[in-house]
């Protein structure tokens, strides 16, 4: 009885693992094959990787889209971590009734669907374009500003701050550090895993953001990777090999960030769930 249960357990997990991994394998293998072979269902690695890559570089502005995505995601991540950790720390360390009320109001923003914001935001940035073109429609700033602050990340940092030892705060005050000094020199270095988890979450959602950039970025020069992949994928006579190499390249940064920081991510998540 116990043995058959064990067997079923491993079988189930193995099927789940195969189903999860298979589309990745297919995408990587297909990026090395010719379009015809992909259609024929070839599942073995081929020799057309470089040819596919050349075609991609010739027909699209791959480097530009990669740069745009990188600039937007890195800026968003750094700013988001700074803004949200300052706020999460502030709400917890300088706790007061009025701040708790404000915090709860901020949490409500998590319930607002982006679909309800996109039209007013689009009009808002349209108006900004008339005065400050450098931060209006079709600029990096217009992508970053509305997405950089999320109540989720503030909540995440506040939860983790609950575990930050208060004695360290007192010690910092005794040493004559300013409140900002305590935050920068004591809090920030001790909360590395929280920052790592926050960085992963933010970087991934920023790198993968699609709907808002689709609306606000309107010229080929400002295209991000998801927009490039979406355009390639909607063509009528798709070159599978070439599209798959674009998808592989577009997935590498988030996969890398995840695998490098996986330990901190899991640790940070456990911290926030406690």
């Amino acid at each position, binding site marked *: 009885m116990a043995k058959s249960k064990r067997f079923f*357990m491993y079988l189930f*997990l193995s099927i*789940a*693992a195969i189903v*999860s*991994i298979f*589309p*990745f394998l*297919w995408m990587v293998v297909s990026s090395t094959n010719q379009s015809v072979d992909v259609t024929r*269902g070839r599942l073995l690695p081929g020799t057309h990787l470089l040819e596919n890559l050349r075609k991609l570089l010739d027909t699209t502005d791959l480097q530009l889209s990669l740069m745009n995505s990188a600039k937007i995601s890195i800026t968003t991540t750094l700013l988001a971590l700074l*803004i949200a950790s300052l*706020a999460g*720390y*502030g*709400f917890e*360390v*300088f706790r*007061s009734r009025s*701040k708790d009320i404000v915090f709860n109001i*901020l949490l409500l*923003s*998590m319930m607002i*669907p*982006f*679909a*309800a*914001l*996109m*039209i*007013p935001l*689009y*009009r*808002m940035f349209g108006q900004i374009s008339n005065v400050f073109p450098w931060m209006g429609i079709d600029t990096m700033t217009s992508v970053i500003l*509305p997405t*950089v*602050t999320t109540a989720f990340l*503030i909540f995440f940092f506040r939860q983790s701050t609950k575990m930050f030892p208060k004695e360290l705060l007192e010690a910092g005050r005794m040493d004559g550090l300013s*409140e900002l000094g305590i935050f920068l020199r004591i809090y920030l270095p001790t909360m590395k895993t929280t920052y790592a988890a926050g960085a992963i979450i933010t970087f*991934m959602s920023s790198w*993968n953001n*699609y*709907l808002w950039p689709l609306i606000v970025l309107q010229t080929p020069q400002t295209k991000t990777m*998801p927009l490039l*992949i*979406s355009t*390639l*994928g*909607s063509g009528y006579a*798709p070159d599978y090999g070439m599209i*798959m190499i674009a*998808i592989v390249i577009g*997935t590498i940064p*988030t*996969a890398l960030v*995840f695998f490098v920081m996986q330990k901190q991510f*899991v640790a940070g*998540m*456990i911290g926030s*769930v*406690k």
Partner: protein
Amino acid sequence: MHQTNSKLRFRTKSVLTGWSFVLLAVILIFVFYFYPMLQALILSFQTGTGSNLTFTGFDNYSRLLSDKTFIVSVKNTFIYLLVQVPLMIILALFISVLLNDSKLRFKGFFRTAIFLPCVTSLVAYSVVFKYLFSGNGLVNTMLLKLHLVSAPIEWITDPFWAKITIILAITWRWTGYNMIFYLSALQNIDHSIYEAAKIDGASSSRQFFGITVPLLKPIILFTSITSTIGTLQLFDEVMNITKGGPGNATQTISQYIYNLSFKYAADFGYAATVSYSIVIMIALLSVIQFKVAGDKNG
């Protein structure tokens, strides 16, 4: 007199310090969430194309009720919601309980493999799924070779199967994400509770429903609310797998809003009204989910 003054100054200073930490975040959330939200509400009472808008009261709201495309989009969104969210949450719970077994080998491999789909962008995996499930795609080729079907299934072009494809795709992408939350919470449960239950002769299903589910309730509530909010806003997948087709068979509310504002002649007022229908649904469903969870508590 002097002393109280300086004390007062000190208190004001520390209150100001506290607020200065949170100020930037508060301003940004108000400017980019609550202010546009209010703007959308005002817009929802206006009609016109582009920026030529006039107030027309509740016209847009009564238009909703007779708008067939809107009704189809709501229906589709609810089909995804009612089928996909429970399916994914049960699957994620089940997998995380299996992975939490202390005697399980290759735990790290299984966990990483099942979480792997979460590193892909919604657009990227949608395009991959579109090709895998196309008429002459790999899924059909394999099903035919294994003689499981006699003719290729129209995964993308049949109204019924297209919905199934979308549901399968979303489940593939998000199950591992929810699993991580459950796994984190499971690791916080004291193992002795299970040992005691075993001694009392509780079966594994009794342990699951009697211990695991009640202890994980807050996190299950959290994931079901976030998944509900996510599904009500579904856009990327449908846009990139089926484009809402065939006809409007897979179109979601978010996609309809996008079409109204940016594809056809820009009808911002009516689009804002449609978007408020999602706001109302999210509010209602969250209240219901809190109520359901609360009742079982008592």
